[in-house]
């Protein structure tokens, strides 16, 4: 710690240069933080997926429907402890831009399958007794300033009534919270029986089943057993872990992880050059001072450590500033809840960022530190003369 002052003094030497470098590093880590939040927003459900939940859908595509009668046959497969049906509804509120996830589900089975959705007993009971009742996430309620008891009209272009109308009316009977931060609170769930009775086509079919297994260790065997059950039928199925299906959803907009890694790679490579240049220039400018320090008795290793500490301090100061700003920006919730309902910098990302700061500091400082370490005392002093 006694050398910290010396290290900090060197950073104060060219204030403008240090400030600009800090800003560059800060912006890089700000982007790192925001892109981490974005990645979570686009793939967030994957991290909240449970290992003991499987998804069974049509073998060809998720937009192909499967009969709800499969539910009983899946439930009868050994190792399966619960099955519930879900269907993509695609509801719109008033204006096409007001699009959000909406799904007909079976209330009791659904809430049992997804304990992360927390609904009060009173709201559960109201859902059971209200045929067109809907349970709505907190974020969505806030977005449209809805309250329990409101009647909400939605249109669903892909699900029309027998008379051709796409207008559906629901009554909000309750709200849900989540037990996990990464779970989306902007969804709209309503009853399957109301939906099935009202739609004019594909009655008795659903988009996919959520299947709970007794033991996650047997998930592979059960996956195979489910698909075997419907092999060679008119509606062959594909069963996969919940995470895999969520990943598939997320990848419909491209390999988000690869895109983000690519962007960050380019940003950090640039920062590596900028920061490396600053440190190298700074060390070169004070060759004589390094010679003096060595003449006073500073060892080569200590000089190496001081330069590395300087580059690490620069990276950490800039990084903490940038990542901190990203965290502050997202800690209050998503700036665009309609598009990115789950949006925050995850803890793992913050830890990764901290590691990246130190790595950046070490990599950018390595070359000038080695040069400073190898510098001969008399040679450095001679340069001044």
């Amino acid at each position, binding site marked *: 710690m*006694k*050398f910290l*002052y*010396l290290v900090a*003094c*060197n950073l*104060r*030497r060219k204030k403008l240069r240090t400030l600009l470098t800090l800003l560059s590093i800060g912006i890089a880590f700000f982007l790192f933080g925001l892109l981490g939040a974005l990645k979570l927003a686009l793939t967030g459900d994957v991290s909240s997926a449970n290992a003991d939940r499987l998804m069974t859908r049509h073998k060809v595509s998720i937009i192909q429907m499967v009969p709800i009668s499969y539910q009983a046959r899946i439930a009868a497969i050994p190792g399966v402890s619960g099955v519930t049906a879900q269907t993509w509804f695609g509801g719109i509120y008033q204006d096409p831009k007001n699009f959000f996830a909406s799904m007909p589900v079976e209330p009791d089975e659904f809430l049992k399958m997804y304990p992360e959705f927390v609904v009060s007993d009173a709201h559960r009971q109201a859902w059971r007794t209200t045929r067109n009742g809907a349970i709505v996430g907190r974020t969505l309620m806030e977005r449209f300033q809805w309250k329990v008891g409101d009647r909400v009209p939605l249109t669903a272009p892909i699900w029309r009534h027998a008379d051709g109308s796409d207008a559906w009316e629901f009554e909000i009977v309750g709200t849900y919270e989540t037990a996990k931060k990464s779970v989306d609170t902007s969804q709209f769930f309503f009853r399957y029986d109301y939906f099935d009775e009202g739609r004019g086509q594909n009655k008795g079919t659903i988009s996919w089943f959520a299947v709970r297994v007794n033991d996650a260790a047997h998930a592979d065997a059960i996956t195979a057993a489910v698909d075997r059950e419907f092999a060679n039928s008119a509606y062959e199925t594909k069963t996969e872990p919940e995470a895999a299906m969520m990943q598939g959803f997320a990848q419909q907009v491209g390999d988000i992880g690869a895109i983000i890694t690519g962007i960050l790679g380019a940003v950090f490579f640039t920062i590596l050059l900028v920061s490396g240049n600053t440190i190298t220039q700074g060390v070169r400018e004070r060759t*004589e*001072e390094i010679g*003096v*320090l*060595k*003449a*006073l*008795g*500073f*060892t*080569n*290793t200590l000089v190496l450590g001081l330069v590395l500490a300087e580059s690490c301090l620069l990276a950490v100061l800039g990084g903490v500033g940038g990542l901190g700003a990203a965290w502050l920006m997202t800690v209050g919730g998503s700036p665009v809840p309609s598009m990115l309902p789950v949006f925050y910098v995850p803890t793992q990302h913050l830890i990764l960022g901290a590691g990246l700061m130190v790595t950046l500091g070490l990599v950018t400082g390595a070359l000038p530190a080695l040069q400073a370490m190898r510098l*001969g*005392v*008399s040679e450095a*002093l001679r340069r*001044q*003369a």
Partner: protein
Amino acid sequence: MTTDQSPLIRIAEVDKTYRRGAEEIRVLAGLSLTVQRGEFLALMGPSGSGKSTLLNLLGGLDRPTKGTVEIGGERIDTLSDRRLAGWRARHVGLVFQFYNLLPVMTAERNVELPLLLTHLSKAERRKHVATAIAVVGLTHRKSHYPRQLSGGEQQRVGIARAIVTDPTLLLCDEPTGDLDRKSGDEILSLLQTLNREQGKTIIMVTHDPHASARASRTVHLDKGQLSAAAPA
């Protein structure tokens, strides 16, 4: 270092050569020199005679190509880089012609630098720094940065930094070379005081006969050897 009456410095048959491309430059040629404890020795000679090179060898800043450098009974020419750095920190105080203070630090922080290599606590370091700064008469200027000090004052800070660890040997490379006569005289008086009152052994490189007159002995170097005018 030992406290006996044996010479503090013994240099025997020292050669120092540098390579500049294919050319080999012999800066010191079989030089031998003995310096007693408590001496104030002036090293004089024309440019390129090897004065600064000799000073570098005595301070452990460089190694001889041939010969031995023994200080306080210890062969320093055979020490590893790491041990040599430690030896310098403990036994040598260096005063440079251009002061070589760190511009981003105040006078007292500059003086504290060598103490960072010791195990002293912060309070002990401050105490030592205050004493050294008081010795050179700059207590009232201790919080100033080098750019706020005159040349003479900067050199005083340089001397305070050199003596703060209480080294036995002070090596001064043209300490008055960048100063006006008045400031130079003050610095020389200070060095004399350190030599006479605190018993510091001082070796000073200088071109200035006026400065060398303050020393207790003067040796002349010419072409890497002690000249006849100066008995070793």
